[in-house]
C-alpha cells in the first residue's frame, strides 16, 4: 500500500531530492509522493531538465583567469618562504601598498563585518607589518593601469564586465607561472617627448615616496655594446626575478603609521616585462621550429591591424622562434621572441594596439632587462632583452622603419 501523501513536496524539496541532499526520512517521504502522485512525478522530471554540465562550462571560466596577473599579485603580497616570519618585512610594506584607481575601495578592519568603504582616493596606503594597528584602514584595489593606453581603451573598471557567456570565448591565454613582485622600473632619464607621451594625471611609474624611491636604482648607462644581442652584464636590478625583497628601508620609520608608500602602478610594459623575463635563451633553444609560425604571424597581424608579414618581424643575427597573441585588457598584444644565432640571447618584441599618438623612443629597465619603447601608427612597441641599450636601440630603429 502506498504511503499516504498529505503534503506533496515543493520544488525546493524535489531539488534537494535530485541533489541527494535529503536525509533518509525525507527521501522516503518524497519517494512515497512520487509513487502516489503523478503531478509530483511530472514536476520532478521537469526539474531534472534543468541539469547542465555546470562544472565543464565553468572550467572555461577558470581557463580564462588572468593567472599571470594574479600570480604577480600574490607574489607581491606573499614573501618567499625563507623570509616569512621575519619581523617587519619590507616586502609587505611594498606589497600591501596599492594605488586606488579602479573605483573599488575595500576596508580591512572587519573581516566579516560591516563595510569600511572609503571614498575613491589615490592616496591612502598602508602596510601590513606586524606593528600595524589592527584597525588601520587600507584603501585597496588592484593596481590599475593608469597610463594613456588604459584611458584610450576606455575600459573604466566598472564599465566593462564581460558576460559569462562571452567569457567562454576568452582566449586561451598562455598560462604563465606566478610572477615575482612588480618592481619599479629604472627609467633612465626619458626624453621629454617620452615623458609627455607617458604622462597622465594618475601615472605613478616614478616612485612617489621616500620608501619607493629607495627601491629604484639610479640611472646607470649600460656598458658599450660588445656585439649584437650581447648580454648586458648586470643590468641594474630594480626588481628582477627576486624582486620581492625590496631594498627600501622599513617605511614605518619614515612615514606615519598606516600610510607608508605608494606602489608603482604597472603599465602594460610592466605586465609584459613580468612574464617575458621568464623566457630564457634555453626556453627558445629547445623549442621546436613551428612550421605554421608564418600563418600565426599573419593572423596575429590581422588582430593587431598591422602587417607583420614580409619579413617585418626580423632581427639581425637572430631568428624568430615564437609568436604569441595575448589579450591585454581587451587589447590585442603580440609578443615575438627572437633567439640570437649563437643561442645565447633573447630579444622580445611586443606590440599592442593602443590608438595612441606617435611617440619617439624611450628607454627603461624592468626586471633587469633593457627596454626600448615607442608608439607609431596607433601601436605601442616594446623591445626588451638583456642586450645593451645601444644594441636594442639599433634593432628598434630598424624595426620602426618597417612599422612606420
Amino acid at each position, binding site marked *: 500500500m502506498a504511503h499516504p501523501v498529505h503534503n506533496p*513536496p*515543493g*520544488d*525546493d524539496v524535489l*531539488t534537494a531530492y535530485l*541533489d*541527494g*541532499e*535529503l536525509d533518509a526520512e*525525507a527521501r522516503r*517521504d518524497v519517494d512515497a509522493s512520487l509513487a502516489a502522485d503523478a503531478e509530483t512525478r511530472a514536476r520532478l522530471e*521537469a*526539474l*531534472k*531538465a534543468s541539469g*547542465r*554540465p*555546470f*562544472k565543464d*562550462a565553468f572550467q*572555461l*571560466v*577558470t581557463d580564462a*583567469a*588572468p593567472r599571470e596577473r*594574479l*600570480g604577480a*599579485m600574490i607574489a607581491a*603580497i*606573499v614573501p618567499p618562504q625563507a623570509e*616569512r616570519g621575519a619581523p617587519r618585512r619590507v616586502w609587505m610594506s611594498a606589497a600591501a601598498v596599492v594605488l586606488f584607481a*579602479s573605483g*573599488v*575601495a*575595500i576596508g*580591512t578592519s*572587519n*573581516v566579516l563585518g*560591516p*563595510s569600511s568603504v572609503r571614498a575613491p582616493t589615490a592616496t591612502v596606503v598602508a602596510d*601590513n607589518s606586524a606593528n600595524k594597528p589592527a584597525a588601520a584602514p587600507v584603501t*585597496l*584595489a*588592484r593596481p*590599475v593601469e593608469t597610463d594613456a593606453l588604459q584611458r584610450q581603451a576606455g575600459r573604466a*573598471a*566598472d564599465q*566593462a*564586465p*564581460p*558576460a559569462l*557567456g562571452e567569457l*567562454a570565448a*576568452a*582566449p*586561451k591565454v598562455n598560462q604563465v607561472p*606566478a610572477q615575482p613582485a612588480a618592481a619599479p622600473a629604472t627609467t633612465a632619464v626619458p626624453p621629454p617627448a617620452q615623458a609627455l607621451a607617458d604622462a597622465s594625471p594618475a601615472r605613478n611609474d616614478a616612485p612617489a615616496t621616500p620608501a619607493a624611491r629607495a627601491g629604484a636604482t639610479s640611472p646607470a648607462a649600460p656598458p658599450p655594446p660588445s656585439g649584437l644581442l650581447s648580454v648586458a652584464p648586470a643590468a641594474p636590478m630594480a626588481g628582477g626575478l627576486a624582486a620581492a625583497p625590496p631594498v627600501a628601508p622599513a617605511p614605518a620609520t619614515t612615514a606615519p603609521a598606516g600610510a607608508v608608500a605608494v606602489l608603482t602602478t604597472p603599465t602594460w610594459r610592466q605586465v609584459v616585462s613580468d612574464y617575458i623575463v621568464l623566457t630564457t635563451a634555453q626556453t627558445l633553444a629547445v623549442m621546436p621550429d613551428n612550421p605554421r609560425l608564418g600563418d600565426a604571424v599573419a593572423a596575429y597581424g590581422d588582430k593587431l591591424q598591422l602587417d607583420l608579414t614580409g619579413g617585418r618581424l626580423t632581427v639581425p643575427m637572430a631568428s624568430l622562434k615564437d609568436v604569441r*597573441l595575448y589579450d591585454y*585588457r581587451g587589447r*590585442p598584444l603580440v609578443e615575438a621572441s627572437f633567439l640570437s644565432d649563437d643561442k645565447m640571447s633573447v630579444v622580445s618584441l611586443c606590440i599592442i594596439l593602443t590608438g595612441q599618438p606617435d611617440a619617439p623612443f624611450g628607454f627603461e629597465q624592468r626586471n633587469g632587462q633593457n627596454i626600448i619603447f615607442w608608439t607609431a601608427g596607433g601601436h605601442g612597441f616594446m623591445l626588451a632583452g638583456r642586450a645593451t641599450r645601444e644594441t636594442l636601440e639599433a634593432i628598434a630603429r630598424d624595426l620602426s622603419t618597417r612599422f612606420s
Partner: protein
Amino acid sequence: MAQNRRNVVAEGLPEELARMWRYGLVLSGNRDTAEDLVQATCLRALERAHQFEPGTRLDRWVFSILHSIWLNEVRARKVRLGQGLVDADAVLVFDGLKYTETNISARQVLREVQELPEAQRETVFLVYVEGMTYREAADLLEVPIGTVMSRLAAARAKLAGLNSEAEGPPLQSNRSHGTSGP
C-alpha cells in the same frame, strides 16, 4: 602557532587564485572587479590568518572572505553609486578557442547562469560548480539551509523553463522535509 597559520594560508593561496577569480567574476560580472576581489581577499586572508583553522579547507575559508567583501563592501558601494553590476557589452578578444559543439554548449550554460538573479547565480555556482553541500553553501552565505534550497529550486525552475516562479520562491514549498546536511 600564529606564524604557522600564516604560512599555511600564504602557501595555500596561490592554488586558489583562479577559482577565487572565477567566483569573483560570477558575483561581479566584471573581470577587473574580480581581480580586485581576489587581491582584497588575499590581503584579508593574510591579515586574518590567525583565524584560519589548520586542517580545514582553505578554499572554503577564502571564499567566505571573498563573499563577505563582495557583499558588504564592493557590491554595496556599486549599488550605492548606481553603477551597473553587469554589462554584457564587453567582449573579450578571442583567439584560439575553437567553436566546437562542446564550447557552444558551455557558452550557453554560462549565459543561462549569468541570467539568473545574483543570489540564485551564486548559489548555483557554489553547489553545482564548486560542489559544496547545501550546508556548506548556507554557512558560507550565512543564510538558512532552506534559503539555499529555495534558491536552487528557483534556479532549476528557470533553467528548465518551467514558470515565472524562478524569480521568487517556489510556489510549492514544503519545509517539513529534512535535509541530510549536518
